[in-house]
């Protein structure tokens, strides 16, 4: 018996065919993984099911009944709920208020807060979703906010729960909590569809996986014990991908190229960076692990000159830099390359062409410009060469960067940085929102730079990436470096615990108690 059947779904956007004749069969009471790269059409398909988009053609059957879902309200009335990647919560309201919003319990025509809290608590207990119903949403961690979203769905009597990339923003511990909850929901008969591009999670959690590629269903099959990541990756990308990065230790002396000494950054009486000491060495990748918002952005900013320290020093090539001289331009000219954490914000100018973007930051230098006049021929030659070398898929260097896919945008930025002979590379979230093929490529390029003796700082929210690439890892928590070791000494659990504020000592205690 199927909870959801989608037959021949086609969705044509202006000039993009997002879904082409898609067949999706989701059994009642299973966890179904919708797997695919960015732009494969997963989210579009689920937005159609949730009534956000109307399909160009195709049929939807929910619980055996053919239906037309014009809007999310209709979807909710059919028992379909969606937890979006960006939560749809009202921050200043409490958990209970958020959960019951739109379906408030009433007493003599007025909102019955007591009953709301009661109902939320009952639901929460039933599924092991622990939250404080009175707490304001703005004070909650990301993982807890997600629980509120799930509660909201359950409160609306959802039988079919769609989760869009639910683990993208969670720590490893939060992920295992979420999986526990999802399994419990499944036991109680709910049907769950998760949109994901993570292979490991699909194998761990899902009963069935449907792989989408370029808007089409490639395959739909039960998840078995024999299935492995490589097999799924091949289905997803359409060719064999290596998930391991070849990495041998770089021989010789690893001198310190760039360092922070007692670096402190205070804003509004808060220490965003608190007495940070770091050494970025040549031929090494130093990974920074941490939950977002614990000082990563500030760390990147002080190393690239975007912000100045309020205490301590930035050291480059053995010399302490005088604070007043530190500007983004100074750092660029000192060969500190910057791959920004948010490429849409810091990385490129969307309306500029690939050629214009590929020299951004180096646009004053010869041969791109002389006496303030742009040498377009030299620039375009360079852009063509770099775009080719870094495998940017495009029609021409005169296309705007905004028209490229995330992976290709990132390759433009990586090409820009790597082609300028950097001594230090500050690589922040280098593969965020990038498809697997490009991830593989970017990883091997980063390792190549390290092998060539560059000093690399890697800031990433993806623990797999950090552990795979880094030689050493430092953990950033609340603006402080709380632990640092060789990457090989860490496992995912330890890192996850350190990232959420457990100290090495407290962890040892826990182990002893167990």
């Amino acid at each position, binding site marked *: 018996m199927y909870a959801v059947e989608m037959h021949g779904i086609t969705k044509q956007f202006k000039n993009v065919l997002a879904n082409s004749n898609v067949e999706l069969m989701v059994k009642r009471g299973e966890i179904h993984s919708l797997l695919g790269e960015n732009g494969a059409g997963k989210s579009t398909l689920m937005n159609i099911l949730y009534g956000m988009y109307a399909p160009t053609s195709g049929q939807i059957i929910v619980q055996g009944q053919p239906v037309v879902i014009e809007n999310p309200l209709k979807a909710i009335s059919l028992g379909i709920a969606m937890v979006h990647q960006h939560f749809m919560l009202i921050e200043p309201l409490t958990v209970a208020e958020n959960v019951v919003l739109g379906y408030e319990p009433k007493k003599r025509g007025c909102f019955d807060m007591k009953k709301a809290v009661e109902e939320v608590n009952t639901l929460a207990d039933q599924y092991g979703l622990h939250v404080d119903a009175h707490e304001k949403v703005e004070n909650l961690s990301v993982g807890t906010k997600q629980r509120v979203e799930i509660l909201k769905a359950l409160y609306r009597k959802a039988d079919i729960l769609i989760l869009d990339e639910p683990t993208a923003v969670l720590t490893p511990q939060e992920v295992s909590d979420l999986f526990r909850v999802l399994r419990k929901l499944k036991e109680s008969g709910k049907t769950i569809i998760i949109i994901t591009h993570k292979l490991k999670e699909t194998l761990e959690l899902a009963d069935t996986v449907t792989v989408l590629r370029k808007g089409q269903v490639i395959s739909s099959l039960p998840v078995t014990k024999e299935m492995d990541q490589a097999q799924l990756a091949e289905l997803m990308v359409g060719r064999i991908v290596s998930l391991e990065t070849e990495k041998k230790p770089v021989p010789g002396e690893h001198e310190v190229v760039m360092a922070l000494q007692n670096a402190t950054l205070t804003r509004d009486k808060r220490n965003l960076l608190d007495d940070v000491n770091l050494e970025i060495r040549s031929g090494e990748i130093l990974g920074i692990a941490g939950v977002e918002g614990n000082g990563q952005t500030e760390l990147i900013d002080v190393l*690239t000159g975007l912000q100045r320290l309020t205490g301590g020093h930035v050291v480059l090539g053995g010399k302490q830099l005088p604070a007043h001289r530190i*500007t983004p*331009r100074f750092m*660029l000219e000192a060969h500190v390359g910057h791959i920004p954490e948010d490429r849409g914000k*810091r990385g*490129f100018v969307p309306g500029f062409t690939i050629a214009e973007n590929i020299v*951004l930051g180096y*646009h*004053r230098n010869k041969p791109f410009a002389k006496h303030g006049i742009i040498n*377009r021929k030299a620039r375009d030659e360079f852009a063509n060469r770099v775009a080719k070398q870094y495998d940017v898929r495009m029609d021409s260097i005169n296309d705007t960067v905004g028209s490229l896919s995330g992976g290709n945008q990132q390759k433009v930025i990586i090409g820009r940085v790597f082609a300028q002979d950097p001594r230090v590379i500050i690589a922040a979230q280098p593969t965020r929102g990038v498809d697997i093929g490009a991830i593989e490529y970017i990883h091997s390029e980063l390792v190549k730079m390290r092998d060539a003796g560059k000093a690399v700082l890697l800031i990433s929210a993806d623990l797999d990436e950090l552990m795979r690439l880094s030689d050493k890892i430092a953990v950033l928590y609340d603006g402080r470096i709380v632990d640092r070791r060789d990457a090989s000494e860490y496992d995912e659990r330890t890192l996850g615990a350190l990232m959420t504020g457990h100290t090495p000592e407290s962890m040892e205690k826990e182990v002893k108690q167990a």
Partner: protein
Amino acid sequence: MTQKTQKKGFSLEKLTQNTVFLSVISLILSLLVAGLVMMIAGYSPIEGYSAMFTGAFGSVDNIAQTLGTATPLIFAGLAMAFAARGGMFNIGIEGQIIAGAMPAALVGAYCSGLPWFIHVPLCFVAGMIGGGLWAMLAGFLKNKLRVSEVILTIMLNYVMQYLAEYLANYQFKAEGMLVRTETILPSAELPTLIPYSRLTTGIFVALAFAVFVWWFLSRTTPGYQMRAIAQNPYAAEAGGINIARMNLLTMFLSGALAGMGGAVEVMGVHHYFIVNMTSGYGFDGVAIAVMGNNTPLGTVISALIFGALRAGSTSMNRMTSIPGEFIQVLQALVIIFVSTPGIVRALLRRRSFKKNDQKKGA
């Protein structure tokens, strides 16, 4: 058949993304709506528009009037467009025109004994520096006090207007009834192309500056940096661009363009600085740049259209009983339609839907 209509809808969609098309449609819509207003007010729009058309293009003298009026408008539009391309919203062009006109008039009147090929450029430079510094003051205050340049430039308009009025009333007042400065020397005058018209060699200077603006924006590193800041200041900052310093440069050059407008008006038309000589050129500049999509070519074309409207309104006033103020209604409508492309798109889309429905019905 459904596919066919869909295709058509798609191409219409694409067409409404086209800014040139939007500007043209906006102009036509404005003419229609202003005509409607004329009708409601009891005048004949056909009579009004034909008088206006004659006034703008009817004879060589009329065309000269149109082009002559367009000259300062080109500068004003370029000043606005240039600032916008650098991410600044310069509403102070009116004041900057005055800030350029005044020094140009003084240099023109008091620097005697110079040949024209030195005196004319010298007046231009004086005008550019005057307008430029006045605009840069707004940029400086924006950087220092973190106040929006929109408010600053609007307010500085009044400061400059009264400052110039004061100077023309006391320090530099010429003999006679008018509040004006001394007449400039013949060596600083721009020759007229058609006798007794506003059309002078200033129009060539304006066109040359339009080409310069295009070249500067697309071919120089400062131009590149300006455009980067306007489109994504965060990426520009990460790219080592000093935003505060570039804002100053953007404002200076924008003000210099406005100041040139003032200088050309003094040197070609009035031959002295006189209060209220700008008569709203600066504010028209905003509309002109918007209609020209902030490109130099578009700005020149829309300045010519606005020049025609202004020239036409004078003769509409003279030849018919229709008040010239209707041209201001028309201009305001142009601004509304151009700056809210959503209206135009919605109007066009509705029409195409209706067509589709009719076809379906048949």
